[in-house]
């Protein structure tokens, strides 16, 4: 194991070290204690995870299936899984047309005309698969690698492995996350140090314009009054420190108040988009009420990205119409895609023009895909057996379709990438070896990938 990680672990388990540790880690690069500790050269420094809650359909977006069109309405000519979430009907063709885009000529459906313009930057993994056919289990699996127990989330592992690049902001921020289906567990640090916990801004029920970190500001006191109060607190604290000079936790606490005070300014600064140009706002669709909400989330993601936040999750989880079209596929997916297509394309273009896409890995996907078979007359059921996740930037090949599902899109079949493999590959791009990024807890070494995971080397740029 990497000596720094080892030291972290040692500190993490001793009573005296802990406060000190968390404190230094928050200071991040300033003290150098938590400077990045890669296992190998990193291609990406940070991650933006665009999570489409509910399960967008791959056969209607990035994985065209001509045979599905041809055999529309027929019984599926293959065995269904042993366990399915709901009763499966006959094959259902996609209501959308696919067109080819870019130099790569990769097909994208009419649901994503804007993202399609960036197709040469996308690495479309068409062979993703997971293990759980229910939302909660699948969302937990995707975020934490386990659908059976509470485990640290992917973002927490990344922060644990790489530390922070900004001393005044959290290292792992999740914007408007859903509280359902795993909820906090999806950004929780579980047994990893508390500092690795994701910091939520609002929830899926909060319009992103109102999304804030909890307790980031006093409801009435001005900063100057609060400064005076803080000085008095610190005066008292210094006295107790003089009485107990050996207690490191007391020093750490003294500093944590100063850091908190600085966060009170840094966070609103990061969220204040008044300085963004008209062109940028338009790029993200902030000029259209349909795209404004998600557009703002994406723009915030870029701003956090610039400020060195390590892992940023952006969730699209409509409170009524998630990507979960058991019925009315056409309506639901049309609405959802209309809300995210422009903002996502805007984010990719903006990151690229600012040179950030180079070392920022953007990941798009839901907890599973949907069945090529119908549920009811016009819906699709959950499908964890084969679906699409795409990545962009941060060391992946653009303009690539990797892996494949079968002819109808039910099962991942070629170059299969299990969720564990996706995790292993993301960590790899960040310079972390998924087999060596471990944490000892309750007598065992834990990993994001458990005992699984292979890096998909052929998607690396």
């Amino acid at each position, binding site marked *: 194991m990497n000596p720094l990680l080892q030291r972290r672990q040692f500190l993490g388990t001793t*009573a005296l070290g802990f406060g000190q540790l968390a404190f230094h880690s928050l200071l991040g690069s300033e003290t150098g204690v938590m400077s990045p500790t890669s296992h190998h050269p990193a291609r990406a420094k940070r991650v933006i995870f665009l999570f489409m809650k509910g399960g967008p359909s791959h056969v209607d977006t990035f994985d065209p299936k001509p045979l599905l069109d041809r055999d529309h309405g027929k019984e599926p000519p293959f065995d269904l899984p042993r366990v399915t979430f709901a009763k499966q009907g006959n094959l259902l063709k996609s209501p959308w047309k696919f067109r080819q885009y870019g130099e790569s000529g990769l097909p994208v459906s009419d649901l994503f005309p804007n993202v399609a313009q960036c197709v040469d930057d996308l690495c479309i993994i068409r062979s993703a698969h997971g293990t759980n056919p229910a939302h909660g289990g699948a969302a937990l699996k995707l975020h934490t690698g386990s659908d059976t127990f509470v485990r640290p989330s992917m973002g927490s592992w990344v922060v644990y492995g790489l530390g922070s690049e900004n001393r005044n902001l959290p290292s792992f921020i999740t914007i408007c996350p859903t509280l359902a289906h795993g*909820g*906090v567990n999806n950004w929780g640090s579980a047994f990893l140090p508390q*500092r690795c916990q994701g910091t939520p801004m609002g929830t899926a029920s909060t319009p992103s314009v109102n999304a804030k970190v909890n307790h980031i500001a006093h409801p009435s006191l001005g900063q100057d009054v609060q400064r005076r109060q803080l000085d*008095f607190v610190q005066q008292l604290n210094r006295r107790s420190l003089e009485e107990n000079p050996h207690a490191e936790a007391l020093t750490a606490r003294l500093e944590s108040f100063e850091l908190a005070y600085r966060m009170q300014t840094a966070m609103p600064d990061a969220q204040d988009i008044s300085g963004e140009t008209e062109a940028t706002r338009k790029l993200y669709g902030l000029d259209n009420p349909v795209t404004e909400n998600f557009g703002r989330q994406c723009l915030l993601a870029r701003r956090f990205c610039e400020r060195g936040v390590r892992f940023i999750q952006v969730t699209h989880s409509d409170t*009524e119409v998630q990507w979960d079209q058991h019925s009315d596929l056409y309506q639901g997916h049309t609405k959802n895609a209309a809300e995210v297509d422009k903002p996502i394309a805007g984010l990719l273009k903006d990151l690229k023009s600012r040179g950030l896409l180079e070392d920022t890995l953007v990941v798009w996907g839901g907890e599973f895909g949907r069945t090529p078979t119908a549920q009811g007359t016009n819906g699709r059921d959950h499908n964890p057996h084969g679906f699409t996740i795409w990545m962009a930037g941060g060391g992946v090949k653009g303009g690539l379709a990797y892996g494949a599902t079968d002819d109808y899109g039910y099962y991942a079949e070629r170059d299969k990438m299990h969720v564990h493999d996706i995790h292993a590959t993301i960590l790899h791009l960040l310079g972390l070896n998924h087999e060596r990024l471990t944490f000892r807890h309750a007598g*065992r070494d834990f990993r994001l990938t458990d005992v699984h995971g292979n890096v998909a080397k052929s998607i690396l740029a």
Partner: protein
Amino acid sequence: MEGISQGRNEAGRTIDGICQPSELHRIPGIPPSRHRNRGSSGVGFTNVIIPHSSGTTRSVGLLSLAVLSFGLNRTFGSEAISPEHLDFFEKKIRPVLVEHCYECHDAGQGKIKGGLALTSKNAIAHGGDSGPMLTTGDPETSLLIKAVRYKDRDFQMPPRSPLPTEAVRDLEKWITMGAPDPRNEEVVAKTSSGGMSPEEGRNFWSFQKRSEISLPSLPSDPPVTNPVDAFIRFAQREKGLTPSLPAEKEAWIRRVTFDLTGLPPTPEEVDVFLKDTSPEAREKTVDRLLDSPHYGVRWGRHWLDVARYADSNGLDENLAFGNAWRYRDYVFKAFNEDKPFDRFLIEQLAGDLLPGRNEETLVATGFLALGARVLAEPDRAKLEMDVIDEQLDTLGKTFLGLTLGCARCHDHKFDPILQSDYYSLAAIFRNTSNFDETKTGAIHHWFEHKLEDHGTAAELKDWDKKIEEARKAASGFKSKTEGEIRGKARAKAVDYLVAAVGFDPDTSLDRVEEIAADFDLHPRILYHTRRHLGVNRDAPVFKAWWEYQAKGDLEGLRAFYEDKFEKAVLLFSDLQKKDPKIAVLPDADLEVYRAELFDNAGFLAVPAKPEHAFDEIALAEYDRLEEEARVLESAAPDHPAAMGVADVPKIVDTLPIHIRGSHLNLGDSVPRAFPAVFSSGEAAFPEKASGRLELAKWMADPDHPLTARVIVNRVWRWHFGQGLVGSMENFGPLGETPSHPELLDWLANWFVDEGWSIKKLNRLILLSETYGMSSTPAGERYAEIDPENRFLSFFPIRRLEAEEVRDAILAVSGRLDGEQGGKTIPLRNRQMVFNHTSKDHTSYDSLRRTAYLPVVRNNLYDWLQLFDFPDPTMPTGHRVSTTIAPQALIMLNAPLAIDSSAAFARRLLSSAGNDDDRIHLAWQLAFGRSPSAAEAESASSFLVSSADLEERWTLFCHSLFASNQFIYLN
């Protein structure tokens, strides 16, 4: 072949991390339950050439190898291989194996996933965890072929992509020809360093019975009277450590009061103690605190940590545990009444099976039911085994300090626990009902004991009915309103088509709203209409639209569609009068227009989201109705029931070992039994009962090597902040060794002899000199000799725990509500805490003690989460104490701190005396002592400010809450 046997069951935790794939060294072909050679481990990481033998003695799971080649020659003898066969192997088979299989199944590289190596003839013959890989001459029954054919979704290899068809055919052919293989080396596997055998385990300290311990003799003057001190002082002398001086009386009473009740001492209590100069002053204080009802709240809460208590499921789906509070109250009462710990254990594991079972003992079994479960798991068989796993893991960690869950997929990698031991215990729990037959959608309901309803049944039925009606009112209103919107849009269908000509699909909704206003249309529907036209450009129904649009002929467009729609609608209604069942128009052309007009997902689709579809008034009404239904449900009384477990009607005596933890890959059956390390004899289990009661009694036996040690160690930890054994939940070889082994055993003996009384143990420890030491070290030497202070040369300073922080703020400000017991989660049993809306309705406005606030898994109350409240899905005997900036933010900005500061200020301002007296009182309330002159001075100068009186004092009080002295105990 790791993935192979697993299907979708990966049995996560149990093989996490430490058992890296490369370490899974089991001899191929030897099912875990057989051929074990107990006690012959220790081969180490070397390739071993195995002599032929027929060694099939029982072995430890870790493959100590020897066993390999039994009978090999008979089947796959090393007779010479023909040149043709050799050629076929080298050209067709070896390359496939090397390219596609060796990455995971190469014994030489130590890669033996699923226990399988494919690098030698013997290895293939023996196979892996799933059994031998081939039947010579018969591809149809060979596992190898089954896997590469990729037909069985739960059993296919290679994991990422199927082999080329040609390669599969070659493998089939190869097996048909007898699987000729020149790789005769019998190098099979590297062996794992592995866990202990049961025999070895019996020599490990924690599995050995306790013996009589005599007190160490110390030349001490005055003599040491408390046995605890004798052991501690003795070890300190050995280490060359000097203990610190006794703590100040103020520090001691604050320490002990928080310790036993979780609350600060009142100024009066401090005063009485300071004035009491009798030798019994401390005893009196300890007895007073042990008698306080707050004792049970504080110490019961410790137990809830290790019982992973929560008021909601919060794993995949978050349903309220509306009856969990009964277990919480049971625990608090048990501590207040000092229920003997052996009885406490038995009630929690088997209260439903006790001869004198009653409501209290049924409630106690909630311990087994409180785990977080994947309630929407559609695979029932997996779900049942996952629940058993959670129960075994929890009871192992909580009572025995054993990580039993590690043996779900394979023998424990470190402890002397075999996989067969795990399934013997699981067989006991397989006889337990964990689920009711009802469900909420796809969500399974956990089992509950029905309790006496005291005549409320009729009333509850009425509530159920009212809730149902309220829900229907909301959903009915929604469909009615949608119907109206749809009807209105249909009446103006042509206007939508005309208006849609005026803009392209990328137009901002703002602009579309303006256009819609001109035509008096629904903007979101119009927005959709235009996009729908784009997507369905080729649909016959819109052919005319595109033509007229291209020509810019709006009048023509209007006339065309008015004509079509009108005709279609009229014709249809005429036909309907004759035949009410008619579904489509016979005229195929007209039907296209009719169908589109009436298609709910067509160009006039009403937005699915009420916020988008409804006007403000309708939306407000809909929200009101939904909220009414939710509030009604939240307020409804529950059917009286207790979470718990009961035996199933049909008892099974055995359970098959689940190979690699998968319910899809079953091995030999094992009988119900206790782990082999604890005894060599077989235990007798009743035919007609699960065996849980026998298990509980066995665990509660005074001579059980682990139970008493584990609980005594916990109590020690809860007093001193660290255990004598540092790893509270792990007394196995990977856990920490005891700092004071004799003290641990002496305490365990004493505890059992004194009737398993927790309060007596508290008293013994609290009245020791060790507990009474100052937190200031006597010198610097400890930093070199004992930097972690395991030998307690001074009292460890500690930060208040989450509940203490909030309770102290409320107590000092005079706001604390001391009410005890009862249901506190403001949700009905099994109500969703969160649904898809992500709206957080949990309220924490209550001013009751924090231990009574709902523990919502998945969305813990901020004050709990930030101050290191343990993850309520796993047993935690040692809470960590971190220092992070968000703790400062909540302390500075949260309403609880602000409001309590104001109350604290009012409390001071309403007291008699001048500002100096008030500062004095503030110090006594907040810190349990008087301020020094310098402190009083800086307080006075802070209070000089232009703000108004109450505001000034509020800020002052807030500062005291935020200070280190408030939140740390010396």
